[in-house]
Structure formats: C-alpha cells, structure tokens
C-alpha cells in the first residue's frame, strides 16, 4: 500500500489539520486575552493613581493644589508628569518648563477641546442618569506609557481636567511563568498518533473509527482550552492582588501626609479603583481587601465572553475534521487542481476585492457596534464594544422638533429630519430630471427638426463635465453678494437672496445644480426609447382620430415605461448618494438642515471624529438601500413581464 493510499485511509490528515486549527486559533485568542489583561491592569493602576490625586486636591486652594501635585508626583517614580487645566488656564504642572500657572498657549488648544469633551460627557451622564459616556480617557502612547485624562473637581463641581502621564513598562503585570508551547505540541502529537491508528471505512456512513476520531478531537481540544482558561483566571487574580497592593501603599502614604484618611473597613466602597465611567469596580475594599464574590463575578464574566468564541472555534475545527474524514477535502483538492488555471486568473481581482471591499465592509459593520472615536482608537477592542447603543441612539431618537413660544423649531441633527430631507431631495430631483429630460427628448424627436445633432451635443455637455466642478461653479453663481443669480434678481428690481441662510433657499441651490447635472442622462435615455417607437403606430392612431394627448397617453408613455423605469431606479440611487452636490454647493447649510444622509455620515466621521457612530449611520443607510434594492428588483421584474 502506497503512502498516499495510507493517508487516504487513515484519519491522520483530518485529525492533524483540525487539531492544529483548533490549537492555533485558541492559542491566538488566549494570547490576545492575556495581553488585554496586561493592558487592563496597567490601565487600572493608572486610573487608581489618577482618581487618588483628583480626590486629594478636591478641597484645596490653587496654591496647595500645586504643592500636592508636585509631592504626589515625587512619591511615585512611575508618574512621569501631571498637569491640571482649568478653563483656559494651566493651573498646575509638574513639568518645570511649563511654568504653571499660566494661560494655555495656542498649540495647546487640544487640551482645551479635550476638557470640553469630558465636561460634555459628564453632563450627559448626569442629565440622562444613565452612564453612557466615558469620563476617563486613557491613551496608550507607547509600550507601557499611559496618559490618563479625567475631570478635575473643585468643591464637587467640574473645574477642568487632570492629565497624568505614566511609565508602567516596569510594573508588575501579572503573568504565570510557564511555557505555552510544549503542551499544545504534545496534544498535537497525541492527535496524530490517534490518527495513524484509526482506519476509516469509506463504505459506511458511520463507523467506529469516525466516531472515535471525533471523540479524540473533542477530548484534547476541551482539555487544552480548560487548562488555558484556568491560567487566565490565575493571572486575573494576581492582577487584583497587585492593584490592591498598589492601592494600599498609596493610601497609606496619603494618610500619613494628611491628604486623605485611610478607612480600614472592607465594607466602605473604594473610590479609587473605578472603570472608565468613574464607577467603582467594587473588587477592592477601602482597606485593600479583595472581595471574593466580586472576583468570582469578574472571572465568570470573562469566561462567559471567551466560551462562545471557543465554541465557534471547535465547531469550525470539527467541520474541517468531518470534511477530511468523509473525503470532501480530497475531492475539493482534486477540483482545485483540475481548475487551477481558472483560479490563478481570478485570484488577483478576487484578493483585491476581498481585502479592499469585503473586509472593509465587515470592518465597518463591526465598528458600528463600538464607541470608537479619534481619542480612544488605541484601546483594546473589548473595551470599545457597546452593542446596539449606536443604533438605538440613531433610530430611537424621536426628538425631531420642539414647540417653543415662536412656533416649532426643528432639530436638524436628528436622523429622521435628515432622512426626510434625503427623501424630498431624491423625489424632487428625479422629478425635475425626468420632466425636463422628457420635454427635451420630445422636442428633439420632432420630425424634420433641423440641427438636432447640434442641440443634442450641446445639451449633453452638463453631463460630461466632472460633477464636482459643476457643484463649485453653481456655488459661485449663488454667491450672495456677487453671484450671477442675485444680479438677475436685482436686474428685475427684486431683493437679493442670501441663498445659504434659509432652509428652503439653500435646498433650492442643490436642486438647481443637480437638476442641471441630471437632465441630460434622462434626455438621452428617453430620446433613444422614443426613436425606437415605430412611426406607423402614431399614423394609425391619427387615422383613427386620436388626439395629441391621447397619442401621448396611450402610445408614447406605455412604450417608454420599460426604458424609463430602470433609468429612474438608477437615478434614484445616484441622487440618494449624491454626496458632491450637497457637500460642495450648500455644505448642508444652514446649521446642517440640508444635509442628506451620506454627507451627514461623512461629517460625523471626519468633522466630529466619531468613527463608530458614523459607521452605524452608514450601516443604516446601507439597510435603507438594501430594502430599496429588493423593491427595485420587484419593480424591474414587473416591467419586464409587461
């Protein structure tokens, strides 16, 4: 029996490959989790110190605050620098070159912006009485270097921000010293050994060898994964211990220096060890003791997060195993080998599409379930995950208008307002395009009209010019002071219009531009269809005594329908997504009232830097287009059967 025969008959390939897959994927998951734990511990240590400092200077005057900040920084070599910004003032800083107190400099504007951001986050949380926005910003500048920014309180009120820079590269990050290589290697060897010994019976659907292979795989995989979960729990327990130790050391020093009293009572809530929403974790008591229940809860939470992922990994590997065991893999390989030419030709384009179209698409969908902004990009993924909150915020916000004494004031930032504007925008534009295009096509289709070709070429020009240039040109023509359109109005004694200041007038600027841009397409399409209608139909109708209107109603329109409907369907999508016109002509003025969905999503991402919210917004747009797509295919099919 040849080696390849042997390979086919034994379970060695199947067990080996599926085992390798399961081991590698779980090992990657656990390694990511361990690194995440390390990062989290560093963040906890940093947040602990930051909370402690803010509490220690909460009730002191400016001079004493500066003094304490200096002293605290000297106490702990891990603290590289501390600054406190109150309004536009740099209140305290441990960096000698800063010479605090002084006004913020121009290049320090980001600090001022960050302060406003955190103030808003804090006020949102207070106002809604739901903790939704993070008030502590943590940024990992380089390996082990952390920057923590959080509210600086004076007499219980928000007074500014405190920013602390740490070097925690040398911090005692919990690890369990033992190697992670030999165990999985041993497991793999075991699986291979079992594979060699098992003889598959290709003739039977279920035989003893197949069941045994499955059992061997499951036992080994589950054993390995349980072992790694145990290791993870050990690390997490150690982390809690080192955070508690760090807390106790600092608390004792603060107690001795008279900043804050140390209450040696396990029941008192520890206010230093908080999450990024400044909620106490409840893991460590005020006396530095670790609560066993809270720790069990914490460990359980992580295990709950990991287990489903492990299930998916195991399922995947079992699928691979079954593919091999039942010979599908061999057949797939044979097919691949037979069509290798075709796959080589397709591969470049396919890889390009996967990497630059499908992967970004999935990435965008995933992003929409996080709270990623410009400021917290570097945080680990699990910290940014927030579930459906973005979608709830977009779709669940019905605060569309407010009734005030002066009447109704619309909330232009609301999703439904923008959706309404987008729908009106699409409907009016397509109507204008079709009407103008139809009238021109009818005119150009007149028998014996001279110079048809010249008209056609001249009227098609607006379509040929790049649309961003068109948009900017019209922006110039609508210029409130020197624009041509206001000159015309004044020529006839009318008042000039401040086009971009009113909701309706601003909408008209976009409509005029896009109308100008889109009628040639409709004109050309309709003209083509009109020319294909046989002349004798009209002649017959004329003989029968049909009026002009009747000929239009009963011959032209029905025969145009199969061409017109796909063209309308296409132009609805184009107009719905017409970013350039809105963005470049009116820019959504005034106050974002004329924004359409796509420009709104762009502004959320690149002017407010809320990447995740913008991704969720775009996902909603995609859903709308998808629903439209379903209707579109139904409509198109209906016209085809017509």
């Amino acid at each position, binding site marked *: 029996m040849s080696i390849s025969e042997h390979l086919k008959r034994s379970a060695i390939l199947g067990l080996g490959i599926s085992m390798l897959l399961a081991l590698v994927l779980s090992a990657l998951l656990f390694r990511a989790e361990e690194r995440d734990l390390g990062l989290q511990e560093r963040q906890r240590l940093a947040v602990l110190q930051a909370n402690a400092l803010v509490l220690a200077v909460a009730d002191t005057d400016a001079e004493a605050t500066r003094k304490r900040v200096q002293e605290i920084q000297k106490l702990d070599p891990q603290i590289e620098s501390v600054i406190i910004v109150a309004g536009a003032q740099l209140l305290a800083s441990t960096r000698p070159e800063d010479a605090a107190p002084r006004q913020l400099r121009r290049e320090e504007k980001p600090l001022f912006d960050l302060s406003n951001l955190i103030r808003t986050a804090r006020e949102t949380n207070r106002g809604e009485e739901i903790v939704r926005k993070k008030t502590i910003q943590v940024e990992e500048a380089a390996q082990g270097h952390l920057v923590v920014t959080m509210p600086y309180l004076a007499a219980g009120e928000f007074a500014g921000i405190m920013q602390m820079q740490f070097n925690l590269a040398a911090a005692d990050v919990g690890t369990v010293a033992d190697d992670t290589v030999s165990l999985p290697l041993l497991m793999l060897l075991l699986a291979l050994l079992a594979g060699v010994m098992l003889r598959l019976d290709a003739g039977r659907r279920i035989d003893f060898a197949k069941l045994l292979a499955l059992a061997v795989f499951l036992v080994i995989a589950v054993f390995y994964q349980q072992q790694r979960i145990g290791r993870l729990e050990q690390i997490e327990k150690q982390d809690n211990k080192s955070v508690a130790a760090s807390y106790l050391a600092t608390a004792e020093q603060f107690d001795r220096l008279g900043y804050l009293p140390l209450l040696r009572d396990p029941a008192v809530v520890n206010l230093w060890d908080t999450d990024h929403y400044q909620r106490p974790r409840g893991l460590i008591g005020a006396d530095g003791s670790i609560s066993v229940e809270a720790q069990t809860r914490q460990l359980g939470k992580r295990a709950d997060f990991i287990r489903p992922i492990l299930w998916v990994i195991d399922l995947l590997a079992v699928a691979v195993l079954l593919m091999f065991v039942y010979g599908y893999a061999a057949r797939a390989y044979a097919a691949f080998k037979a069509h290798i030419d075709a796959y080589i030709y397709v591969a470049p384009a*396919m890889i390009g599409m996967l990497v630059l179209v499908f992967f970004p698409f999935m990435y965008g969908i995933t992003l929409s379930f996080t709270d990623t902004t410009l400021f917290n990009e570097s945080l680990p993924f699990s910290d940014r995950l927030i579930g459906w909150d973005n979608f709830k915020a977009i779709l669940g916000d019905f605060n569309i208008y407010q009734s005030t004494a002066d009447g109704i004031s619309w909330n232009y930032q609301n999703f439904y307002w923008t959706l309404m504007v987008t729908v009106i925008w699409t409907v009016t534009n397509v109507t204008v395009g079709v009407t103008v295009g139809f009238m021109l096509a009818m005119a150009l289709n007149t028998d014996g009209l001279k110079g048809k070709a010249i008209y056609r070429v001249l*009227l098609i020009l607006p379509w040929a010019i790049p649309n961003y240039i068109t948009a900017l040109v019209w922006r110039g023509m609508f210029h409130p002071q020197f624009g041509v359109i206001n000159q015309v109005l004044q020529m006839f004694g009318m008042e000039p219009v401040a086009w971009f200041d009113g909701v309706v007038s601003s909408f008209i600027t976009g409509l005029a531009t896009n109308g100008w841009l889109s009628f040639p397409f409709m004109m050309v399409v309709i003209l083509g269809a009109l020319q294909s209608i046989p002349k004798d139909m009209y002649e017959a109708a004329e003989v029968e005594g049909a009026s002009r209107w009747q000929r239009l109603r009963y011959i032209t329109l029905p025969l145009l329908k199969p061409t017109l409907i796909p063209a309308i369907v296409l132009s609805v999508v184009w107009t719905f997504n017409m970013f350039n016109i809105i963005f*470049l002509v009116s820019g959504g003025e005034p106050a974002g009232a004329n924004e359409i969905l796509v420009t709104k999503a762009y502004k959320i*991402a690149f002017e407010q830097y809320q990447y995740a919210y913008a991704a969720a917004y775009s996902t909603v747009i*995609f859903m709308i287009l998808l629903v439209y797509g379903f209707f579109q295919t139904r409509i198109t099919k209906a016209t085809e059967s017509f």
Partner: protein
Amino acid sequence: MADPKTKNHIWLHLGLISFTVLALYPVLWVLALSFSGQQSVGLIDLPQDPSFLERFRAILPLPAHWSVTNFVEVWTEQQFGRWLWNSVIISLMTTLLGVFLACTAAYAFSRFRFPGRSTGMLMFLVSQMFPGTLMLIPLFIIIVKQLELGNTYLGLVIVYATTSIPFCVWMLKGYFDTIPYDIEESALIDGASRLTIFWRIILPLAKPAIAITALFSFMTAWNEFILASVFMESEANYTAPVGLRFFVGGFSSQWGYFAAGSVIVSLPVVALFLQLQQYLISGLTAGSVK
C-alpha cells in the same frame, strides 16, 4: 403659403435655443471667468447704484478684459501643475492596475467553468450596493491609520482600481463571451498554452472593450473627490479635484484660478465623453435590457 409645420418649428427652435443658452450659461461663465485675469466671483465691478443695463452687462458671460494670466499663474504661482501631475499619475496607474485585474478575472469568468464561478460573479455585483460612506471610514482607518498609506499614490491607486473592478469585469466578460470559442480551440490543438491564447488572441480581439474599460477606470480616478480629500492631507499631494476645491472652498476665493484649472481639467474628459458617449450609453442601458 406658409406651411403650418415649419411655423411650429420656429417656436420649437426658439424654445430649444433659449433653453440651450440657459443650460450652457454655467459653462460660458466659467470660460469667461478663466479668461478674465481676475480672482473675484463677479465678472464686472458694478458702480454704487447700477442701472438695468449695467447689471445686464454684469451677467453677460464676457470678461471686462481678456487675459490669459489666470492660466499662466495657475501653473507658475500655484501648485496646480503638481496637483495635475498627481492626478495624471494616479489615474494612469489606476487604469493599468484596474485593466489588468479586470481582464484576467473577466477572462476566467467567460472561458472557464469552475466551482465558485457564479458565487464570485454575484459577489462582484453585490459589492456595488455598498454605500461609499460605509466604506470610507474603514478604508480610512485601514489605509491611512494602519497601513500608513495616506499621502501616497499607492493608497489611492489600489482603492480606485478595486472599486472600478466589478463594472469593468462585467463589461469585459460580456465582450469576451462574444468572441467565438473556435479560435481558441484551434490554437489549443496547435499546442498554444492558455497564457499565449489570452495574450496573443483574446486581448488583441478585445481591444475596443479594453479601451472602454481603461477609459472608465481613468475617469473614476480622474473625477474622484471624496476619497482623495480624505487620504491626501498635505497640500503637495492633492489631486486636481481636491486642489480645485482648495481654491474656492472654506474662506479662500480665488475664482479665477479655479476657473482656469477647471477648464484644464475638464477639456480632456469632455472631449473623451463626447467621442465615446454612444458606447457609454449603450453600456448603461445594456444592463436594463438584458
């Protein structure tokens, strides 16, 4: 005796001419502005209390003084030459890459029957439904933040090339399907390899379709504005569209430079468009007929 039909046509001509003049007004306005030698958005400086005629003169698309200084200065004093160069390079590279990717894939889809063929073609079609903004943010994070390809030609080129693939593949596949298989069969019998057939027989036969595909890829890159404005942050790396907006966006209003630049950028595209419009229109309507 007057023929009633001719009389009708006079009115029709009047209507058509006035509409054409209106429709061409923006074009004429840009042309006038580009030859005006000044930067303001108004062509004429109006006196304090202008009369009807003076206002009428102001809206006529004729510059007060004819001059080519805008065209000269946009090259010499502004970076427009550089931006145009960036656009040319990016568009040419996109065309090369896009046509290569589309030709090979379309050939496989047209000539081979292999598992995954229909799935692959469907995938290309579905990708056309993804909205630009949904792709924009991940692409920005992946290309600019992770791969650090912001401000480079390569970043824009690979994105443009892949976005133009689906349309090009479908179009080329349609054309390849019309090339009779007999030619290839006889070449196969004569001992030619698949690669030789593709290179020596199919590609030369498909020249017209490849020309259209190339044009489409070129126009995609040449006219694209959003991605370029997000990817290219430093002024030296702007493409022509981003640069043109730079002249008149925000608080700057160098309308003369903008107009001159627009004329330069539009001329080749408009010329190509008018030449090839019938192919483009048949390509667009073909989808609806099939």
